[in-house]
């Protein structure tokens, strides 16, 4: 259980700070003197945090579903013809900046959360897809040969052998994707999604550094908390499915 201690501490810290920030006005007057608007008040930080998390969670779930199924599909005999196409798309897609995806999504889908969600899903897909391919491809072929030779059906080979063995690498891909998307979601504020990027954008527009700081600190903490959550998750997975971790 000690494994989960660090993420719990981070999450508690994040929630506490979101609640206490409005009371910390004197602290911010150091940074931004000469104004009364020291604390961002258009929405409560909790509301922003909630909708930020919702955006990331929804996009990560969708992205994982799509990327893992695509990764599985192209490693089956039926889909192996699509393998070069899909892995190429995965690497090319990574070179397009998320802002560009957002800008392109607006004319098609209008302002708000929908285009942000779309961009997040699209952008978060790629690390997961890449790691799914690496994880499934990295399994010792002798293990798959014997699994098949023992009499497992392809579905059994997938769920009993391939996914447990590739799981840790796939999980690492999801971790990268979610961490990137926590940062990217903030940009969604520019096209009208309600996220922790709101205070940052408002601060930049009005020249108020205190706003910028408040948004940035919460986004940073959210990223840290999520990352340590995944760290614990990966270790738990390793304990359940991979022998290496038993030694440690």
């Amino acid at each position, binding site marked *: 259980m000690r494994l989960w201690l660090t993420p719990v501490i981070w999450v508690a810290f994040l929630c506490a700070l979101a609640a206490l920030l409005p009371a910390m006005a004197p602290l911010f007057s150091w940074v931004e003197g000469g104004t009364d608007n020291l604390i961002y008040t258009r929405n409560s930080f909790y509301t922003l945090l909630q909708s930020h998390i919702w955006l990331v969670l929804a996009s990560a779930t969708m992205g994982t579903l799509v990327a893992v199924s695509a990764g599985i599909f192209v490693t089956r005999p039926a889909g192996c013809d699509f393998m070069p196409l899909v892995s190429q798309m995965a690497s090319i897609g990574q070179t397009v900046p998320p802002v560009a995806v957002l800008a392109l999504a607006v004319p098609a889908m209008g302002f708000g959360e929908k285009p942000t969600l779309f961009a997040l899903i699209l952008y978060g897909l790629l690390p997961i897809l890449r790691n799914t391919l690496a994880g499934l491809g990295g399994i010792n072929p*002798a293990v*798959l040969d*014997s*699994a098949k030779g*023992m*009499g*497992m059906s392809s579905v059994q080979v997938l769920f009993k052998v391939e996914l447990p063995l590739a799981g840790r690498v796939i999980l690492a891909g999801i971790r990268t994707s979610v961490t990137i998307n926590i940062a990217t979601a903030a940009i969604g504020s520019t096209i009208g999604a309600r996220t922790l990027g709101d205070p940052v954008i408002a601060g930049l527009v009005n020249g108020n550094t205190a706003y910028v700081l408040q948004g940035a600190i919460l986004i940073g903490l959210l990223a840290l908390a999520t990352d340590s959550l995944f760290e614990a998750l990966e270790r738990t997975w390793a304990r359940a499915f991979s*022998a*290496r971790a038993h030694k440690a």
Partner: protein
Amino acid sequence: MIELKGVTRRFGEAVAVDNIDLTIETGEVCVLVGSSGCGKSTTLRMINRLLPRTSGEILVDGEDINKADPEALRLNMGYAIQSTGLFPHWTVARNIGVVPTLLKWPAQKRDERVTELLALLGLDPETDARKYPHQLSGGQAQRVGVARALAGDPNILLMDEPFGALDAITRENLQQEMLRIQRQLNKTTVFVTHDIDEALKLASRIAVMDQGRIIQHDTPEAILRRPASAFVENLIGKGDRGLKLLALRTVSDLMERHPEPRYSEPGSDSLNESDSLRIALSMMLWTNTERLAVLDATGAEVGIVNREQLLKVGA
């Protein structure tokens, strides 16, 4: 009984297995031997349909294997390979229990079977069962591989160079165990190896393969005495053919049996009933004697081997 009739396998233009006919009787150990790339592994993998055949027929107990469901077919054929292919995320016990689990045996029956097999293969059911594959030595991992192949009590055992990656001593030990297990279980076995000594030791019949064809299919003794071609002669090694022949038979085949067991003086040179004639000859040369006493498992002297007789057999 496994019958291959005119079986051919092509990979693109290349012919890996070229129109072979082979019959493997129930309970016999058929060893496919040849250099790498001769098609022996391909032949083995066609029997459990890991590879489809290009043409020909493969029958198991008279039934065409293509008519059966491939998974059901494989569940009834134990499969052990050189690199073991143990599941790295499962314990030894779970690895061995994989086929019983697939066959939906009740948990208790499966656990009993796992314990039984660990003991049969000389592994400790208490400590080794809980280990993970990476914690095993090469020899232990291969024992687990063989145990896993036997777990579902299959009628047929397919082994693809299972001892190929082991050191000489471990390999020798595992070959002895194989012989012992085979005497106990009598599985129809197809065993692939490139090591002619391993083939001579384990086989009831050997099929020598070269360039996708079977050059000779016969008992080890017949292969040694009447090699069908220069290739076979080369493979078995002309020089020590006599010794290899002696290695095929045990002392108990040849000894003059005493009417009643005697008790010899302890410390004198003697042989065991299960020793090969090759060992008997070596011992005679070493001690420079004409006759050696043969002891049974309890240590009682049950017979005598003499050199003249032994030399006659080798010829």
